[in-house]
């Protein structure tokens, strides 16, 4: 086992951490929240300029050629530093495109940060491919259907749209500004700009082929969520440890109350186990050596742990962590919204049960 980041990974982490502490201030988070678009242009350009959006894209397309593990290190730090969610959505979009179609001609523009991709997968009442009603026209060049809760849908240049099919799903790329594409913005939890998107005979730019199959592709996306969650819970835990050492009540630091100390201890235990379980899943996914329940255990445990840690963090912060000007609530909202989208407990447990019992 080799359980330390490489020098390059550590350097990347340091750079992201430094960037976030400088650029992602609470004042800006509040501004971005008020604006409804989640991030400003200047910050978007800076991040694109750093090459982070293209880090995991193939070198042939001008990307960084980094491994899944490298990207996970980047994303863990973005989660810790509360990098605006649209930027994380763009990283997912870029990688999502590369993993489905590693030789897509569009990748070069994406790697250069000139074009961004939003993932349009879910439909209002269907989360599984078999239920998707979005369809390709008989000509193979136009797409029609309705996608729901598409992150960064309005700002992205391109939509990666999932096509339902009885056998296996297919994916196409559509220009967000093409005729027939319309977005209805949502006021959603987590202050992530999302929209319901309607495609009416919208022109297909590209049919995506040659990459991972959908199940594997989704596991790769979940791996990114795991990394983001680990970063977020580390931040919530660290903030809480700092706070209980300083805050006084009844004439003493509240860390001296055993009940407070033990809650911190349990946060620490959950964080430690979740971090290993998540990274074990990420590293085994990357090396193609996933055990039978590794991935689903990691999904169920990491998501639940992030929410639990945020809950305890809020509890121990009391009123001081509850005002809108405190970053903690951003972590808590991301915890729930990442869980809902990428690591819901029910299917993970169902898969584990099937592995054990069927």
């Amino acid at each position: 086992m080799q359980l330390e980041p490489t020098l390059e990974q550590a350097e990347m982490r340091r750079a992201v951490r430094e960037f976030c502490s400088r650029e992602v201030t609470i004042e800006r988070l509040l501004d971005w929240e008020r604006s409804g678009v989640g991030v400003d242009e200047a910050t978007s350009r800076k991040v694109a300029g750093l090459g982070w959006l293209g880090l995991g894209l193939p070198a042939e397309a001008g990307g960084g050629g980094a491994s899944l593990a490298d990207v996970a290190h980047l994303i863990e730090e973005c989660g810790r530093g509360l990098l605006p969610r649209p930027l994380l959505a763009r990283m997912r979009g870029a990688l999502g495109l590369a993993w489905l179609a590693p030789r897509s001609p569009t990748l070069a523009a994406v790697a250069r940060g000139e074009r961004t991709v939003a993932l349009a997968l879910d439909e209002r009442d269907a989360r599984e491919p078999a239920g998707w009603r979005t369809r390709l026209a008989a000509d193979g060049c136009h797409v029609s259907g309705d996608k729901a809760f598409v992150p960064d849908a309005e700002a992205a240049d391109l939509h990666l749209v999932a096509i339902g099919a009885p056998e296996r799903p297919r994916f196409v790329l559509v220009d967000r500004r093409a005729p027939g594409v319309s977005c209805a913005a949502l006021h959603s939890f987590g202050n992530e700009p999302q929209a319901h998107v309607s495609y009416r005979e919208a022109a297909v730019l590209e049919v995506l082929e040659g990459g991972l199959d959908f199940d594997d592709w989704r596991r790769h996306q979940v791996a990114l969520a795991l990394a983001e969650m680990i970063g977020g819970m580390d931040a919530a835990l660290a903030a809480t440890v700092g706070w209980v050492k300083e805050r006084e009540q009844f004439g003493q630091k509240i860390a001296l109350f055993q009940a407070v100390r033990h809650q911190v201890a349990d946060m620490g235990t959950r964080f430690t186990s979740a971090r290993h379980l998540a990274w074990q899943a990420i590293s085994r996914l990357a090396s193609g050596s996933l055990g039978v329940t590794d991935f689903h255990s990691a999904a169920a445990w990491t998501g639940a742990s992030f929410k639990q840690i945020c809950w305890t963090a809020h509890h121990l912060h009391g009123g001081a962590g509850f005002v809108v000007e405190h970053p903690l609530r951003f972590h808590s909202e991301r915890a729930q919204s990442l869980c809902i989208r990428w690591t819901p407990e029910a299917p993970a447990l169902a898969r584990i049960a099937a592995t054990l019992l069927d």
Partner: protein
Amino acid sequence: MDYGLSPRERAWRDEVQAFIAEHVDERLVDETRLRGNEGRGAEAQRFLGALRQRGWDRIAFPEEYGGLGKTAIEQWLFIDEIETAGAPMLPLTLTSVAPTILRIGDEAQRREWLPRIQAGEVDFALGYSESEAGTDLASLRTRAELDGDQWLVNGHKMWNTMAHMATHNWLAVRTEPDAPKHKGVSMLIVPMDAPGVSVQPIHVWPGLRTNAVFFDNVRVPRANLIGERGLGFYYAAMALNFERLSIGSAGMARRIFDALVREVRVRVVDGRPLRGDPWVRDRLARLRVELDAARLLGLEVAIRLDRGEVPAAASSMAKACVSELAQRVADTGCEILGLDGQLHAEEPSALVKGRLQWLYRLAPMLAFGGGTNEVQRDIIGFMGHGLPRK
């Protein structure tokens, strides 16, 4: 032992239900929800007026001061019905401050404040917490000094909810700087329009507004100190006693849970009814068990009040249990609703009117506010089981 209602209790509950059927409609429930259960909107005022007409605004008053002579169990039934209906609760002015003034105020003070409270002319914000005095109330620093016939008030209060709408503040102030911490506090009524009072909004995560209120050489008449000097810490506890029946009520969590169940009954995901999902079935059933159990902790409070006890341990049990259960209802509910679980109440298509994500944001406050659950558990240990303090 009989957990069924007595004929008198049944008649009372039927009366309350009939009242609710007449006076609670969707506009009131929507207003109450959108204002975060504030109960100060136009619909709420109309509802409160109807309550007043029945004299039910005096439900928590001692009988000798015009109270209805209801037992605590009857009051608990009242609260349970109001909460289940989603109507606003009676304001703390009526359920907490007024009964306290009735008990500790002198005749002149009662004559001064009670009629105006009952007429709805006077409405209090409760000014206890400060930055450095949260659960540790005895550490409060806002001070009042006697200057001739007036109290001179200086300091600030935090989490002074409703202060921007109230006419008066029911303020815990330090009047005896040399006394031991918890013996130097008194209760003072401060008009919000007095010169030197300023209100700053504080916005918190669930979208609610509370306030920081600053007192800069604010002068109030000597007679505005209610009860005895230096006993304010105990008076605050007494005022709290009158809130105990509602603080630990599982009603709100239950109402949101019931709405979630209604949604799950009809919702179809991936072509399958959501109610057929074994995970959903299991989690909802477990929450229902916990809600059934938590509700009866409220009954325990009522039983003890009717026995003439101070139900400190029982109400701490209810408060800690219900606040933590609310979080589980919210968390599980968000996950059951899936991507829809993210939608804010403002979103017209939000399932269950966005209540689950709202409760997810609100629940932490229920657990740390009003005395953290750690202190509640200490109280249960000390008062409920006689564990030693030192």
